């Protein structure tokens, strides 16, 4: 089944794309080697994620039929994504009727411009943000700071990453790689707090610091997990209450969301919210799941005077045009595929060099930022399928990594690889030659192990070569059948 797809690279690379000419791949290989060798940090990540799997499994067990609920969630997203042409205008009309303003952004630069103009028009000095991966995608903070606005991330993990000057390590658990003593030192340095090893005290330091900022900020920027076409509401999922405060206290609320976040009906949330919480963090529901329908209404005692939504394409339509991989747009960003991925656990979040890390990031990044530069991520997989098994909306993640490999081989074949496959095909089609090659291999393997010729050196650098059997498989087979 090969669906026609707009060929990767048919759009000019966006200005926000970094690297080019294999820079991203070289960086990936370098960082992966460093991270994989950092055993203490890997152990730390593994322990943090072991707890996740236990609570998630317990939560899944509370469903009367989790697999069927996955079907329902999958179909709700399939329906929405495959009717985006109908649902986007419907959402826009309903959102506008609620008193909000929709802004359409073709790419990252346009989205940044829209937000900057809104912040400027609001006469804002300070901006408070709650967790928003689309804002990471468009590098919003740097743009706001460049124009002189003070921007503070209010989500604890994002705040820690902001102080560290790092992007999120994991798109749901932004600072899961940071130890508490590092956080304590960071807070001492930036906030002047007393050192402590108690996570609760550390959380309270951030809480106290943030409280004033919610009151003082003129603009609150949030993401959105779902956009409900039927009612024009946006749904925001969180645990800390920081998004509630960000959307509740400042005078202007700006939300940024990808176009694929639209769902048809508010009832779909009755399935999608529990699935998101279960797969994301093993909770029955996250602490706050909030539906916003425009700014404060007459008779309500607080809330923003203006509400804006920036609808971001930024090459999502490129992925949409690939019918074979369109379901990657069903992603609800729960992070489950990262949490179970052996590659993520070993190379860590930064190694990917992408806004969206892990298996789903490896699937969508080549579409959002160019297959030629990002195909190496398709190889960063053992194809074990743990990601697909964990996905609450049944995205066929590991097969899409294979699809990306195939598409990359078609559009930009690797000459050495192709030559290698040709040679293999030639040899494998001739039994006498295959047997001869096998014999040569068995004889020269111990020597190759010692000499480490260039062809094998890279492979041997991180792997043991098992001893060669004395006899070929075919001769052993014949001997056993004869016996």
């Amino acid at each position: 089944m090969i669906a026609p797809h707009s060929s990767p690279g048919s759009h000019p690379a966006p200005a926000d794309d970094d690297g080019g000419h294999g820079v991203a791949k070289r960086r990936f290989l370098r960082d992966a080697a460093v991270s994989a060798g950092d055993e203490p940090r890997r152990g730390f990540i593994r322990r943090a994620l072991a707890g996740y799997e236990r609570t998630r499994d317990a939560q899944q067990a509370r469903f009367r039929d989790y697999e069927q609920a996955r079907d329902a969630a999958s179909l709700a997203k399939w329906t929405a994504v495959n009717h985006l042409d109908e649902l986007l205008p419907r959402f826009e009309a309903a959102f506008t009727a609620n008193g909000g303003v929709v802004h359409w952004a073709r790419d990252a630069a346009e989205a940044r411009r829209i937000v900057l103009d809104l912040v400027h028009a609001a006469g804002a000095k300070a901006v408070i943000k709650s967790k928003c991966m689309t804002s990471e995608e468009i590098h919003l903070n740097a743009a706001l700071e460049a124009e002189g606005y003070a921007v503070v991330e209010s989500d604890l993990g994002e705040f820690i990453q902001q102080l560290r000057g790092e992007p999120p390590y994991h798109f749901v658990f932004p600072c899961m790689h940071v130890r508490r003593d590092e956080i304590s030192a960071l807070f001492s340095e930036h906030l002047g707090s007393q050192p402590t090893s108690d996570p609760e005290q550390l959380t309270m330091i951030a809480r106290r610091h943030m409280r004033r900022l919610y009151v003082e900020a003129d603009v609150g920027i949030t993401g959105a997990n779902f956009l409900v076409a039927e009612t024009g509401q946006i749904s925001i999922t969180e645990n800390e209450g920081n998004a509630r405060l960000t959307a509740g206290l400042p005078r202007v609320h700006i939300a940024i969301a990808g176009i694929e976040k639209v769902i048809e009906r508010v009832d779909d949330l009755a399935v999608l919210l529990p699935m998101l919480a279960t797969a994301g963090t093993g909770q029955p529901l996250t602490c706050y799941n909030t539906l916003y329908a425009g700014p404060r209404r007459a008779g309500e005692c607080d809330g923003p005077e203006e509400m804006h939504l920036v609808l971001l394409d930024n090459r999502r339509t490129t992925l949409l045009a690939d019918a074979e991989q369109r379901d990657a747009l069903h992603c609800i960003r729960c992070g489950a595929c990262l949490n179970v991925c052996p590659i993520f656990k070993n190379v860590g979040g930064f190694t990917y060099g992408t806004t969206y890390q892990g298996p789903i990031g490896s699937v969508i990044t080549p579409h959002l930022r160019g297959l030629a530069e990002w195909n190496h991520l398709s190889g960063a997989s053992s194809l074990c399928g743990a990601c697909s098994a964990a996905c609450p909306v049944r995205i066929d993640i590991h097969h899409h990594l294979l699809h990306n490999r195939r598409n990359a081989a078609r559009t930009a074949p690797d000459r050495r690889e192709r030559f290698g496959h040709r040679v293999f095909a030639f040899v494998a089609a001739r039994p006498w030659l295959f047997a001869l090659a096998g014999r040569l291999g068995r004889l020269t393997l111990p020597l190759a192990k010692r000499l480490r010729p260039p062809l094998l050196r890279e492979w041997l650098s991180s792997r043991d070569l098992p001893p060669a059997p004395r006899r070929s498989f075919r001769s052993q087979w014949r001997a056993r059948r004869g016996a």
Partner: protein
Amino acid sequence: MSDSDPQRSARDTILARVREALAVPAPLPHLAHAPAPPAGGLAILPAEAARPWLPDGGDTPEERMRILVDNLGKLRAVVHRVPDLTAAAELVFAVARQRDWKRVAYHDHPLVVPLLAGVPCATHGVDGAAAHGAAAAKDALEACDAGISACEALVSQTGSILVSSATCGGRGLSVVPHVHLVIATADQIVATLADALALVRRRHAGALPSMLSFITGPSRTGDIERILVLGAHGPRELVVVIVG
């Protein structure tokens, strides 16, 4: 902004890309079970069909109460069941005295007002008269030890409290003070999220509140070494008083 030319062309460009992209149909996802036949709307499988697969919310009022109280306990919320509003007022009085509350925020609601008649501390009403948007109003709310509100519904399935900006004191009351005390009657308990959503849509037909929030336990974070800490930014304590 949205009427300016670049915006119109951005909208048209994106919608044109979407239409072009969708000209090629995508296969249905690989499902564990055959989907039910279509019934209204675009969805092949109505969300209502998912009801028997989701966590149980209980079929009778007694079951719903049991599941709700159980779930709230697991979420580390504090639940009090009282026979009537007089008993609820006594409870709130005792809590306020014991915790030495200086000032509580509330909003005007038939369930909330009787609780405050004899409460041993100052009260701060957030409805109507509050100078909207002013930093002073936010500071006043911030200075309160607790926020007392009613709710739209309680959801047994998930242990959630559904509040709205229309009838539960706006956006700040349930999230700014360090303690959120919710007063509800037993007949406000519904089984599922879908039931709660249906209920608010009936109640606010034609004009949905600008905010509807499912609150599921006190504010929490696991951002530091994945260790659970309560009271990240919102209330550290969630107290639910159920009357009847």
